[in-house]
């Protein structure tokens, strides 16, 4: 059986399972509440390692570290900034260069699942640091790919994508354990960082390309990403099993929504709910990616605006993608995860139905803005949804496998 991580809780203070936590510790243990689905009680798990070691932890610092990691990972969405400079510098075709991004996202999907599995064995810190090393080195090594397209695929695509996948799941799966009282908000915050990464990176990368050239820019940014992710991952650790924030008493309604035992991946896959969650993510991605893939020509056809103006809509809706990740997930803490997805689906049904009739470009953009906020909202809310159902201990692998619903969507649009 997989054991929940405790190795990453490095020592300064040690307390014995069942004993009172040290006074410095910022939370409370509720070991009696947490059960593993096999029926093994939490303290039985703890006895396998005799003690849990913990030190005073400010969970908001962990959240900050997680956002830093996601900002670096989200920079991958700024790939298009490198597109034309690489085409011009080496004579590769647009599709040849774009394939690099597709490879990275494809590998991300597999690596996120593997990272989730690995994380349940060795803890988030190790996986995050390895992810940061792979991602940073992958991007940095792509600076050596002059006239060697295969090296670009191998470095940025395969190695970088591996790092992305391993690292992406780390803050998401770790922070839900530290914030049982605000799961939606915290997962939304983490993945919003991913969405914001491109917004921050794109102007920086464009400026660097103009000054030092495209390959040198990849080299510099690779090192920056490595430092950001490794630094953020170094702060990552799991709370002791059953930990809850000090003084937090979930309401009866909230208590009923939270799993009182932890499901392993195998156990989660034996429930219909895992497949229902996968389907919800799949359908939400499908709707949003339809707009993303056709935004510019669709805007031109429906509202008759010029290609240049239509292209502007692409930038605007990418902002709503990031905002939706945070706002919808935040809302899910108040109205529940099923409620938020119900609202998002009904809202999208209505907007898609009336979209073809919108001749006014401003209204068209508003409709697309809301639809794309729902697309982002799915990514922000789903990790918390999965944790509510299956518990936090193995959510890395459980949600990691769910991400297969997303990966090829991005690939199919961009390749």
């Amino acid at each position, binding site marked *: 059986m997989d054991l929940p991580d405790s190795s990453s809780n490095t020592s300064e203070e040690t307390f014995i399972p069942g004993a009172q936590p040290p006074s410095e510790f910022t939370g409370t243990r509720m070991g009696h509440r947490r059960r593993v689905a*096999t029926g093994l009680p939490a303290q039985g798990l703890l006895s396998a390692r005799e003690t849990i070691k913990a030190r005073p932890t400010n969970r908001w610092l962990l959240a900050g570290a997680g956002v830093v990691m996601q900002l670096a990972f989200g920079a991958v969405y700024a790939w298009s900034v490198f597109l034309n400079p690489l085409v011009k510098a080496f004579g590769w075709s647009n599709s040849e260069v774009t394939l690099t991004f597709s490879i990275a996202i494809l590998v991300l999907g597999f690596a996120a699942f593997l990272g989730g599995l690995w994380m349940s064995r060795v803890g988030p810190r190790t996986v995050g640091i390895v992810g940061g090393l792979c991602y940073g080195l992958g991007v940095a090594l792509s600076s050596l790919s002059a006239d060697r397209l295969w090296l670009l695929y191998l470095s940025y695509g395969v190695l970088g994508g591996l790092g992305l996948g391993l690292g992406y799941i780390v803050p998401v799966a770790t922070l839900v354990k530290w914030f049982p009282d605000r799961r939606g908000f915290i997962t939304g915050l983490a993945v919003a960082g991913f969405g914001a990464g491109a917004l921050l990176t794109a102007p920086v990368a464009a400026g660097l390309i103009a000054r030092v050239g495209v390959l040198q820019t990849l080299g510099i940014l690779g090192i920056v990403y490595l430092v950001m992710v490794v630094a953020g991952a170094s702060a990552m650790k799991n709370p002791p099993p059953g930990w809850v924030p000090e003084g937090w008493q979930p309401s009866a309604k909230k208590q009923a929504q939270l799993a009182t035992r932890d499901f392993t991946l195998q156990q989660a896959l034996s429930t219909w709910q895992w497949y229902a969650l996968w389907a919800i993510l799949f359908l939400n991605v499908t709707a949003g*990616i339809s707009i993303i893939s*056709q935004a510019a020509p669709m805007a031109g056809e429906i509202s008759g605006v010029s290609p240049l103006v239509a292209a502007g809509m692409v930038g605007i809706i990418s902002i709503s993608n990031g905002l939706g990740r945070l706002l919808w997930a935040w809302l899910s803490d108040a109205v529940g995860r099923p409620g938020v997805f119900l609202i998002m689906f009904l809202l999208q*049904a209505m907007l*898609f139905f009336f979209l073809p009739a919108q001749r006014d470009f401003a209204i068209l953009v508003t409709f697309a803005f809301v639809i794309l906020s729902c697309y982002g909202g799915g990514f922000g809310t789903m990790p918390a949804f999965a944790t509510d159902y299956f518990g936090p201990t193995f959510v890395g692998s459980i949600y990691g496998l769910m991400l297969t619903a997303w990966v090829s969507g991005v690939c199919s649009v961009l390749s």
Partner: protein
Amino acid sequence: MGFGGLLGPLLIARIREATGSYSGALTIIAAVMLASSLLPLAMCGKNVRNEPVRAS
């Protein structure tokens, strides 16, 4: 692979090519989203913890 947005972009592109406009594709997506709302509705109050689970 092939999941997620493979369906959406392909669907919208094919219908656009077949009909010459986006209207049909967008209406189909609207209908799919409406039908999809049954899924979260079905999950309200259906917590896994209340169901028997196979031990691994």
